């Protein structure tokens, strides 16, 4: 009897403690600080479009940073509806030359070989939308294009040769002639604006060859001032968020091949290369040990394995009718001054300085114009520089600026991967939260797909990217 009594007491104690319930601690509460955001429009270039791995395709567009931001806005009480994009079915847009899908994929583990698979391209699949797209990012767009009302059919022809204006800016007569007009027609409460990258990227990715200089700073200043001023005048009450321009030297397109070549060079042998504007005998040589070594572009991936071997593949691939004066392709390629590493595949120190100065000048312009127009600046340049210097970690994932293994960039070494897009979206969200007093939850990048191909860091192989694969990239910032 006594035992039963104590048993009951013990049981009561057990239930009392066992019944303890956990209650949520105070923490971030999603919200827009009372603001009403009913429409969000994104303006930009390939980075905004969700272009990835050298192509535009729906399964990557789903992870464009604007689409991710739109999703997070909804979580914070924004009522932006369904965010519409100019989707292009997988495997995506065609290469202008081959007519096959330009998207890079892993073709073989041996190498590994990365490049287009020769697949039949996809097609536009969201073409009946009776209004402009919410994502007006056009691959290849430069700052000039924002207000330009040229017919998109003209831009598909040389010199722009860019058919993607027609994909994004449909039905100009009804929906608006320019990016600006179509954006304003949507009456957005929030606009993100990220243009200007291609005004310096085209110069840099072509090794300073095509175009031979970035957009001049006075012209960029005039165009940017006019763009944001016009946008602000048309949308006096909208939140406008602009992103600045990352230093091209922070992306793996420029940082992947050089270190591999440096590791392969025989002791005491230097890479012989052409400096800016030179098509003849090498006027530069490097062991990559100097403070500011030349950067070898990823477009050189199919030529790097030929180093030290006699041959003139570069000249055959590019249809030279005759070898330039002084060139002798019986000499070892890249190691002899008479068969040098081509100017188009290297960003030499002077070219890096040119690109760097333009980025710095453009970003100063962007900061000033933004301040004058009550626009918030997202410092993507600062973020990418930090990424390159020390990486970026979140939820146990470590991102770096390394090609493929870094996780941030897609196979083309320029455009973010799915997870990289999430990281970029979070930079926009962070700027909006701190400037507008909002509390938008960040994208959980761990929930986004990662690139499927790891490259072992120590591997003594070059990523093999077939010649001509970069045709699409060249189109993106081709001659204007």
């Amino acid at each position: 009897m006594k035992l039963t009594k104590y048993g009951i007491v013990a049981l009561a104690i057990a239930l009392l403690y066992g019944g303890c319930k956990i209650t949520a601690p105070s923490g971030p509460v999603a919200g827009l600080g009372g603001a009403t955001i009913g429409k969000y429009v994104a303006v930009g270039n390939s980075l905004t479009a969700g272009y990835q791995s050298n192509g535009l395709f729906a399964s990557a567009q789903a992870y464009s940073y604007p689409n991710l931001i739109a999703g997070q806005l909804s979580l914070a009480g924004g009522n932006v509806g369904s965010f519409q994009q100019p989707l292009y079915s997988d495997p995506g847009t065609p290469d202008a030359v081959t007519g096959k899908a330009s998207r890079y994929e892993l073709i073989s583990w041996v190498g590994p070989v990365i490049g287009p698979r020769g697949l039949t391209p996809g097609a536009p699949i969201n073409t009946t939308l009776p209004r402009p797209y919410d994502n007006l990012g056009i691959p290849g767009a430069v700052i000039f294009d924002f207000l330009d009302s040229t017919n998109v059919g003209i831009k598909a022809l040389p010199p722009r040769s860019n058919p993607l204006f027609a994909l994004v800016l449909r039905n100009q007569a009804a929906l608006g002639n320019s990016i600006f007009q179509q954006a304003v027609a949507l009456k957005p409460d929030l606009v993100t604006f990220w243009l200007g990258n291609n005004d310096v990227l085209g110069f840099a990715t072509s090794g300073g060859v095509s175009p031979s200089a970035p957009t001049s700073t006075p012209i960029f200043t005039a165009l940017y001032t006019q763009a944001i001023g016009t946008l602000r005048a048309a949308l006096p009450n909208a939140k406008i968020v602009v992103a600045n321009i990352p230093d091209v030297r922070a992306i793996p397109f420029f940082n992947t091949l050089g270190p591999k070549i440096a590791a392969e060079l025989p002791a005491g042998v230097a890479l012989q290369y052409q400096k800016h504007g030179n098509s003849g005998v090498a006027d530069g040589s490097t062991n990559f040990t100097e403070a500011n070594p030349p950067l070898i572009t990823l477009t050189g991936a199919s030529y790097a394995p030929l180093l030290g071997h006699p041959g003139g593949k570069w000249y055959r691939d590019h249809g030279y009718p005759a070898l330039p004066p002084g060139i002798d392709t019986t000499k070892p390629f890249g190691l002899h001054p008479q068969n040098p590493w081509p100017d188009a595949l290297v960003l030499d120190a002077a070219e890096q300085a040119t690109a760097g100065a333009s980025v710095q000048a453009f970003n100063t312009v962007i900061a000033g114009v933004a301040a004058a127009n009550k626009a918030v600046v997202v410092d993507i340049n600062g973020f990418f520089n930090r990424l390159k210097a020390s990486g970026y970690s979140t939820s146990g994932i470590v991102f770096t600026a390394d090609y493929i293994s870094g996780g941030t960039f897609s196979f083309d070494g320029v455009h973010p991967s799915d997870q990289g897009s999430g990281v970029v979206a979070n930079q926009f969200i962070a700027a909006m939260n701190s400037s507008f007093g909002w509390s938008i939850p960040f994208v959980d990048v761990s929930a986004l797909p990662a690139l499927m191909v790891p490259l072992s860091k120590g591997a003594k192989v070059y990523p093999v990217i077939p010649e001509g694969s970069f045709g699409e990239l060249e189109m993106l910032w081709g001659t204007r």
Partner: protein
Amino acid sequence: MTRVRQFGEALLLTLIVASVALAGGFQLNEHGANAMSQGGAFAARASDGSAIYFNPAGLGFQTNGSIYIGATGIVPTISFYGPLQDNTNAETNMNSQFFTPINGYITYPVTDRIHVGVGVYNAYGLGTEWPDNWSGKNLITKVDLKTYWFTPTVAYRLMDNLSIGAGVSYVSGTLLLKKAAPFDTRVTLDMTARGWGFDGGIDYKATPELTVGLSYRSKVKVDASGSAGFVPAIPVLPVGGVTATITLPATGYAGVAYKFCDALSLEADYQYIGWSSYDNLTFTFTKDGSSTSAPKNYSDTYILRVGGEYLLGSLKLRGGYYYDHTPVSDPYVDPLLPDANRHGLSAGIGLNLTDHLSVDAGYLFIKFLDRTVTNTIPATSFDGTYKSYANLFSLDLGYSL
């Protein structure tokens, strides 16, 4: 002859229990229902078979051989709110789990002064399991560490009021670890480990009422090896052999027990745990010699314990409390082991069923103090609040020869 058979049956029972057991919580201090009921303050009295764990010298004062065998059921509840890296307070609950660390001790007085015994128990173990697709999946989705300690022990009563004891432990364990890995793969590390350790203790009855006990258990370096599997299998990932060395920390007790009257005894213990030996967790992959290392940088820490027993007729009523100071500083808190300072409150009963057979039952409630971390190391980058508690139930049967 009878005794031999009894020992054989007990050993068999021990092995059966052991084969179905799991361990939980990285260090386990629940090694007998009697001790657990009294807040684990038991190093001075060490008056049953669990002396093999708490203080081997305690055997020297035990006059009869005994079998003491049982298990503890652990039901942890852990909720995470965050991560703050995602500017969210979202709740994630750890999957429901149930762990049953075991204990089994057989002791026998060889002479009037020499008492020998052997114990099997789980001194260290860890079990956390989170949803497969939670936001911390790149840190951990499942970890299960079990260690079995087999400890032959001998105690020698030097004087009527002074006993010393020592033991050697063979430690055998398994480690299973699952998480998301780069390139959308999932990695599973499945390893076995073994190592050796030793322990020793002194028990001194200063007066008939006052007993002082000291014990020490060495750190144990366990060498683990096993296999790493990746799904999907990607050729360049280090699939195949994997090795690790984990140091299970040293621990020591200093206890003082006082017998106020025949019916009431109380004890207070200070327990030291040398967690600073756990400075990193490194796995080395055989395939390419690469390794992955997570800094842990735990600190040495302590647990303060008080407990007592009151005789009410034939019923022993027990209660206790302890405060367990976390060895983990904020930057190193991660969902693998979301540790925090803990309060433990325990109660239990003991009853002699026959002249030889007794039963002990105990209950322990552990409240982890809410822990909000905002400065986890870059490799973790997973800030937020952990709220945890655990219910433990313990049952032991004793057979006195």
